[in-house]
């Protein structure tokens, strides 16, 4: 028991590692604040293209979505970070994360939003157009608000996944929470910093998990 406490819940080590863990935590928040909007932007573009573009564009958007849903995000990230420099294109760790998240989480958000747009009856668009709204106005004021409401649980749940996914940025050495915890563990030969990081992730994301659970149960029960 004492051995367990010493290795995993060591107060001295925690105090020592605290400053860099805190920095890592803030970095994770910043990464999330950048990657979530990036993914959403990609998702909105894909969803609009795959529901209202010409046939060729719709098919291309669907293929694009499947492509980036089939490639694991870490593979994409490693390719952008370690592969591209061989071709003389060095986007750096930040660039790799930004592009990778735009492509990967954009595909997921796109799929969710596409389903949302599909769930709005066609009559809504026709009614909106017949009142004199343009297509763009109808999409923005009539279709998208209903679409978002219909798939809200999936949108929130996807956002949780994006925040969790920022932990793979540790692989390209961005100093986010997991990376800092690994550094601290290497320096101290003690697992406490990693346990602390896990606790931090849990405290940060638990409210979101609870919220999703409630939204999902409501959606399932409402059928």
């Amino acid at each position, binding site marked *: 028991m004492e051995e367990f406490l010493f290795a995993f819940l060591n107060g001295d080590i925690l105090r020592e590692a605290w400053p860099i863990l805190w920095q890592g935590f803030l970095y994770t928040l910043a990464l999330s604040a950048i990657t979530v909007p990036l993914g959403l932007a990609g998702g909105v573009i894909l969803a609009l293209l795959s529901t209202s573009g010409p046939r060729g564009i719709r098919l291309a958007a669907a293929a694009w979505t499947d492509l980036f849903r089939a490639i694991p995000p870490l593979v994409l990230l490693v390719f952008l970070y370690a592969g591209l420099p061989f071709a003389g294109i060095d986007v750096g760790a930040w660039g790799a994360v930004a592009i990778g998240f735009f492509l990967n989480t954009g595909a997921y958000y796109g799929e969710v939003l596409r389903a949302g747009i599909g769930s709005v009856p066609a009559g809504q668009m026709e009614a909106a157009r017949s009142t004199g709204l343009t297509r763009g106005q109808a999409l923005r004021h009539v279709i998208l608000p209903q679409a978002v409401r219909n798939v809200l649980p999936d949108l929130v749940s996807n956002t949780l996944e994006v925040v969790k996914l920022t932990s793979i940025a540790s692989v390209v050495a961005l100093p986010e929470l997991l990376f800092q915890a690994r550094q601290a563990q290497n320096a101290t030969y003690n697992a406490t910093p990693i346990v602390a990081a896990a606790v931090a992730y849990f405290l940060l*994301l638990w409210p979101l998990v609870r919220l999703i659970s409630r939204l999902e149960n409501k959606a399932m029960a409402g059928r």
Partner: protein
Amino acid sequence: MGGLESFLFSFFNLKVMGTYLPLIAQGLGLTVILALLIVVSGLALGLALALLRACGIRPLNWLIIFVVDLFRALPPLVIIVLLFFGLPAMGLGMSGFAATWLSLTLVLMAFAEEIYWAGITAVPKGQWEAARSTGLGFFQTLRLVVLPQALRITIPPLTNRTIAITKGTALGSVVGVAEILGAAQSAMSFSANPSPLTLGAIAYLILFIPVVALGRWVETRFAWKR
């Protein structure tokens, strides 16, 4: 070298690809085995937890909800790192393969439990009462009446979640598992050429595009009729 030529040399170098094809193919095999193990153990454990929760023992249910929330909130890579780099401090070292398998199993278990549970609670109460009044026991009702209805509506969300989590096998490369990404990365450093990474990406596409398409099909096939 021209731009296109240098691009092809870097990313579609057939000589390098030929040399490392066997290594990537082995990685593909390992990814498939790992993914299958995760799917079987994760879905089975998730169902077991959901059934346990259906028994309605209060303190036990709180524990189940906590465990499920925990593994839904933690990033899979954090769990893998904790098991692989943390546990040896207790003298409980495990291989990267075991750490990846166990981590993703726990994550899939948590998500699957939540989905199964939502499915079970979505079956109207009257179904329980009617079945019990015909003389079926609690477990008979669960098995013969409730589960068949519950599982049907869980199939689409479960399929999508399972696909997303099995793609997490690539995280194994961080703890030295020679699955597709791990194999491709070693091949890339041996050959000083990123073509093996292209090959790895192709391997993932071969593996997951049919699965993603299957997920799409399942979604429409089992869609709940409103």
